[in-house]
């Protein structure tokens, strides 16, 4: 068994309730942190090497230290519980089964950031989770861990659960802030960054659920101890939500640096490919990251074992690598059609584009239509190059990263599975009955 930091108590009977959670050492980090100076808490998090678990992997302590505390304006902490990246369902697991861990993390983090009002923005579909969190907050408040003068230290904090309403884009941090202000979720142009101009124009930190839930452990055990777990560049553990054609889909806490092969094939984790099939491809970090064929997800281009870590998954850049992203791990077996899956994702991004920038608004529509036509046997060879061209024109030319997120799945599918697109064009009927994904060589050269 590998090290558990987030899920070590999840199987304790009744851990959802305040009393059981407290009896098992819960809220001890609040007692400890509130005796420290807020900036010392930030220092611990910096030392831990924790990188944001929402997808971008930005160092959490560094983000916290950018928060404008000097101007004396109100500061806000907003927890991103929008969890809408396809393949990702880990935050839900934490909030549903050990809600007090997030509440405890929110209190300690808010204290470090000197915020007196903090929000947890939960996607609106998680209706039962919203209830669970509201109940946990009420319990913590009754016990004196929230509200006025927490534990007699003079520190005040209110925690509000905010409900989203179905929009993937509201996971993007500035769209989330717009949504929290009661508006459409249109991402803002950066800079200014939320650390200076965030919620209601005030200094704001936005962090993922998992990033915040790990803070109590860091405060109790020290940043140095956390940094000892995982690899040098990927400290700690990570929740991975595994899905697709595997035997044991679910949420797993892994120590960063675990070999990908072990994660997929060992009984402790995914338990191998379902129905005795062969593995064809993996999307390792949510739908937005590049898809990799089996040989590249298991080994880097240099022939080393690929590991579950920020640096190993991105080894080789996008030519041969991908990203750890949100930890949404999607496994495809040999029967799955890459063209169809790419079309499905393109449709998703087209549907979710907020429409502010034309490369994203129009480009995602183009990609969806071209892929739909190739998938349905109406494609031309030149459509594959056109598709390549369209995704190139989106990447890097938009206000928020949704544009890149829409381009990467398409680019990587063409890069690694071009022959499958060609077969869809040349032999559409055959192609719908047979799988060409395991063919050896491309017929046409890569653009």
């Amino acid at each position, binding site marked *: 068994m590998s090290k558990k930091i987030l899920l070590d108590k999840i199987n304790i009977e009744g851990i959802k309730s305040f009393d059981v959670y407290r009896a098992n050492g819960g809220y001890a980090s609040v007692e400890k942190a509130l005796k420290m100076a807020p900036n010392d808490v930030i220092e611990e998090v910096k030392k831990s090497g924790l990188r944001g678990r929402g997808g971008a992997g930005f160092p959490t302590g560094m983000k916290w230290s950018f928060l404008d505390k000097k101007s004396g304006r109100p500061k806000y902490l907003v927890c991103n519980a929008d969890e809408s990246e*396809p393949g990702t369902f880990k935050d839900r697991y934490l909030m549903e089964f050990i809600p007090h861990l997030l509440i405890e993390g929110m209190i300690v983090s808010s204290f470090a950031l000197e915020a007196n009002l903090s929000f947890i923005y939960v996607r*609106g579909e998680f209706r*039962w989770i919203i209830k669970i969190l509201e109940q946990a907050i009420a319990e913590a408040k009754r016990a004196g861990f929230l509200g006025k003068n927490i534990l007699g230290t003079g520190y005040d904090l209110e925690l509000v659960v905010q*409900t989203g309403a179905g*929009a993937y884009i509201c996971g993007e941090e500035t769209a989330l802030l717009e949504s929290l202000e009661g*508006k459409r979720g249109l991402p803002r142009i950066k800079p200014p960054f939320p650390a200076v101009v965030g919620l209601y124009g005030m200094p704001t930190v936005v962090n993922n659920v998992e990033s915040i839930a790990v803070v109590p452990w860091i405060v109790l055990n020290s940043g140095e101890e956390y940094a000892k777990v995982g690899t040098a560049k990927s400290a700690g553990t990570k929740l991975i939500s595994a*899905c697709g054609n595997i035997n044991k889909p679910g949420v797993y806490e892994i120590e960063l640096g675990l070999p990908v092969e072990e994660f997929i094939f060992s009984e402790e984790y995914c338990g191998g490919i379902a129905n005795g099939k062969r593995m064809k491809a993996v999307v390792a970090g949510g739908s937005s990251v590049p898809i990799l064929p089996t040989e590249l997800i298991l080994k880097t281009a240099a022939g080393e074992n690929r590991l579950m870590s920020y640096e190993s998954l991105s080894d080789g850049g996008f030519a041969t690598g991908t990203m750890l992203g949100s930890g949404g791990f999607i496994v495809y077996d040999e029967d799955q059609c890459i063209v169809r*899956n790419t079309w499905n994702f393109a449709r998703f991004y087209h549907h979710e584009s907020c429409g502010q920038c034309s490369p994203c608004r129009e480009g995602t529509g183009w990609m969806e239509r071209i892929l739909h036509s190739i998938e349905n046997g109406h494609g031309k060879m030149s459509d594959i190059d056109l598709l390549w061209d369209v995704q190139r024109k989106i990447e890097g030319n938009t206000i928020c990263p949704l544009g890149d997120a829409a381009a990467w799945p398409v680019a990587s599918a063409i890069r690694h599975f071009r022959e499958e697109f060609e077969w869809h064009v040349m032999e559409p009927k055959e192609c719908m009955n047979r799988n060409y994904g395991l063919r050896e060589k491309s017929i046409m050269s890569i653009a």
Partner: protein
Amino acid sequence: MLAVKSGKQVEFSPAAMDRAREIISRYPDGKQKSALLPLLHLVQDEFGNWLSVDSMDYIARLLHIQPIEVYEVATFYSMYNMQPVGRFLLEICHTGPCEIRGAEELISTLQNKLLIKVGETSADGMFTLKRVECLAACGYAPMLQCGMHYHEFLDSEEKIDRLLNDLRSKATQNN
């Protein structure tokens, strides 16, 4: 596709009004517009799971904002229904991870059993089918959401039948 007038007088019950006031009080002074999304959910809970023009105007008055500010938000988010829906809204996830575990089979089975297409409501007013994007249940596919609940691993006809029967009997119990 902006909304339909319900023709009914819209007003929260005293209990819903208490809840609305509590929601509005959560935000700093002058930032009450933050209550808009939660209040629109409350409206859907209270008035048949959709937003009529009348109910949106009501929320605009409650928050002292212009009706257009409510309409533009209501039409942006997929959880707000701009048309009346059946007693049970079945929202089926059709994004990649669910698709490779049988989302399309789930959709066609439901269409065949209810004799409706996605977007339609069954003749008895009981069920409406809607396609939605990833609900963060990808490992438990195929799945759908109905109100408060996620129904996961709907990978056989028996399970689908059982779900529909459970919902039908819930409807008769409550009437």
